[in-house]
């Protein structure tokens, strides 16, 4: 299968790879997917006191498109408010990365991951 240049770029040079302390009250963690399905994404955000995402990190077990989708999302959400981040749509991701139909689920997973991270942060801080 041919990968788009955007996917290859994120795959070769993934942005924001890493792990944050999930016990930190400023950190929200979203982990979605399952090893059996071939994709697991862990996406973490660090949120400032005024509700802006200061930093984001990810680690992904999955195909190149899954890695690229989560890498892209970490880039995008930095500087966003929680509400903005929670409104990210998978179609934006799949368009940016030119994902083929068989890989759309990777973008869906990335959307799920950021939503889960936001929800985790909100639960922690409610």
């Amino acid at each position: 299968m041919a990968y788009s240049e955007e996917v290859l770029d994120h795959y070769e040079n993934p942005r924001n790879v890493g792990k944050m302390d999930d016990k930190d009250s400023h950190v929200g963690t979203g982990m979605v997917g399952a090893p059996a399905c071939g994709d697991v994404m862990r996406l973490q955000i660090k949120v400032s006191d005024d509700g802006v995402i200061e930093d984001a990190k990810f680690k992904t077990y999955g195909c190149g498109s899954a890695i690229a989708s989560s890498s892209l999302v970490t880039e995008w959400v930095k500087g966003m408010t929680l509400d903005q981040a929670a409104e990210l749509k998978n179609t934006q991701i799949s368009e940016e990365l030119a994902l083929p139909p068989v890989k759309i689920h990777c973008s869906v997973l990335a959307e799920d991951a950021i939503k889960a991270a936001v929800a985790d942060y909100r639960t922690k801080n409610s």
Partner: protein
Amino acid sequence: MKLPIYLDYSATTPMDPRVAEKMAQCLTLEGNFGNPASRSHLFGWKAEEAVELARRQVADLVNCDPREIVWTSGATESDNLAIKGAAHFYSKKGKHIITSKIEHKAVLDTCRQLEREGFEVTYLDPLPNGVVTPDSVKEALREDTILVSIMQVNNEIGVINDIEAIGEITRANKVLFHVDAAQSAGKINIDLDRLKVDLMSFSAHKLYGPKGIGALYVRRKPRVRLEAQMHGGGHERGMRSGTLATHQIVGMGEACAIAKAEMHQENRRLMALRQRLWDGVSDLEQVFCNGDFDQRVAGNINISFNFVEGESLLMALKDLAVSSGSACTSASLEPSYVLRALGMNDEMAHSSIRFSIGRFTTEEEIDFAIEKIRTAVNKLRELSPLWDMYKDGVDLDKVEWVSH
């Protein structure tokens, strides 16, 4: 060294130049282009002579009578002809067939078709090491069993089955035994004079011959009857009509002759290369060989790199032409049915790569491959949340995953 490096010899092999040369002599007006079925002139006689020489070369590789070799278009057609042909011919005797869950699709899908026609098929489970045991065949036999079809060497994991022992069981119970030998012919010794095998499928392009040609061995004593699947001019004693492709057949014959002459020497070399590859990667943590380590053909090793997903690994190994144990690149996103039949969990199956080496693989290529694999696995593990969790001592089986 030319990139990418070809490590997918189980998928197909490049033709041996000696084979290509023989084939080229059977194409043009100056060459041996005649129809082997033409009886009225020299062109036909010469072509027939070439075809019969090739038939002997194939027969010599597996120690059978040349008259027991039927030309086909490849192992898929041979499997179809053997299984459907025998099932249809002997259907009055019974309608039960035994095969295994890790057969090639050419066997499995043919069996599925027969199920739709009213046959009953038992699909045997292999052991976790990939071996289909003679005992499991014996236990599955019924009064109405007419055919057993078990491959000699599995295409994904390279594991060798004991077809000699299975043949003893089938013969004693008067059941026909078909063996798919696409991955074994030319790789391991096959002695059909001794083996109690009734039908055996061969492919040329797995042993440095051309694509589009194969053969089916059909035993004469005791005689095996088949219902033809291809009707026409009555070629190949009525079992497979169609003008014989002289150049393809000559190519397969030559490939078999070379394999017979060089197999043992080549196997020693391949065994050493495979060991070199395994030694080069197996000290990475959580790396496993799929299928029995010892009971396998020299050219194959199927490896799981735990916590690394197969498709991204293939992407990182773009300089190596290998295939993923999981068929993730297809639309199905299903991990390999062979690895799953061994009882392997999905994530391990998703993390598997088949490396298959052959006649033209060099030590330099193996060393390059090792470097690439180590770099890729380490990089992807750095990216893998599962690797993190494993390192933190989390039992991944106990995690509640959010499936999708």
